[in-house]
């Protein structure tokens, strides 16, 4: 059944990704992106990456995208002028991306690599966490510091006009959303 699910979720993911970058309204884009992420989470499940699938929904589709939507709403409806890319930039961009994609595709298509069998442990929360908190413990701690500095920075940057009237409307706390989760885990 893996094949069927792959084509189902994969197609939907690609279509919603295309819709993400083509919609005029950022809010619509954000919703398509969330939909895309949900499909990607399903794809992770087909690869027996259980923990990653859950985190994809919780952190990506959940925390990060809610944050995106929050900021989009906060910024409000801007008058959106037409997207008119410079034709030269357009041409060069399409060529570059095409070349990269073509190269990568050729690479990918160079052989057939079927998945083998993996044990029931593969991708479970327990197995990944054990690795994360043993081998990668230092990297994990560094991630904690990384998110702390991001939090400090987001508060610093967004709280600028604390004395002004707008202070109460700034989403100073919002960036700490995903960061906060990680910090609790870190502690």
């Amino acid at each position, binding site marked *: 059944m893996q094949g069927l699910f792959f084509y189902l979720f994969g197609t939907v993911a690609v279509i919603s990704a295309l819709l993400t970058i083509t919609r005029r309204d950022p809010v619509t884009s954000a919703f398509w992106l969330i939909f895309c992420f949900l499909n990607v989470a399903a794809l992770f499940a087909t690869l027996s990456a259980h923990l990653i699938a859950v985190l994809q929904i919780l952190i*990506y589709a959940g925390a990060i995208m809610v944050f995106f939507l929050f900021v989009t709403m906060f*910024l409000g409806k801007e008058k959106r002028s037409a997207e008119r890319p410079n034709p030269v930039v357009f041409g060069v961009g399409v060529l570059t991306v095409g070349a990269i994609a073509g190269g990568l595709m050729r690479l990918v298509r160079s052989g057939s690599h079927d*998945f083998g069998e993996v044990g029931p442990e593969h991708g479970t929360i327990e197995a990944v966490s054990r690795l994360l908190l043993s081998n990668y413990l230092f990297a994990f701690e560094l*991630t904690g510091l990384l998110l702390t500095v991001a939090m400090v920075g987001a508060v610093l940057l967004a709280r600028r006009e604390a004395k002004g009237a707008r202070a109460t409307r700034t989403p100073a706390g919002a960036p700490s959303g995903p960061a906060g989760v990680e910090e609790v885990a870190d502690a």
Partner: protein
Amino acid sequence: MPDLQSLGDNLQVGLEHYLTLSVMLFSIGTLGVIFRRNVLVMFMSVELMLTSVNISLVAFSRYLDDLNGHVLVLFVLAVAAAEAGVGLAILVEIFKKRDTVDVDEFRQLME
């Protein structure tokens, strides 16, 4: 549903299928970054690129039967969260300043 079952069994997918999908999402993300002038959508395109990284990491992980790739994905998630946090904070700040600053200059970035 016997038909669906047999159809699913016939559709064999391997590493290259997932990598193809990953390349497609990566290219879509890159195109979005290049062609959109809306900073929010550009950030969303970056998230698409990072997701494509995750897909290829998980697919490689499954192929190699090795969980290190999954741990890498976790770190990519953390990086994405941190970047989004800082990037959007800067964006919000620019928006707040717009009242006092030349709008034309602003438009260059934020059409």
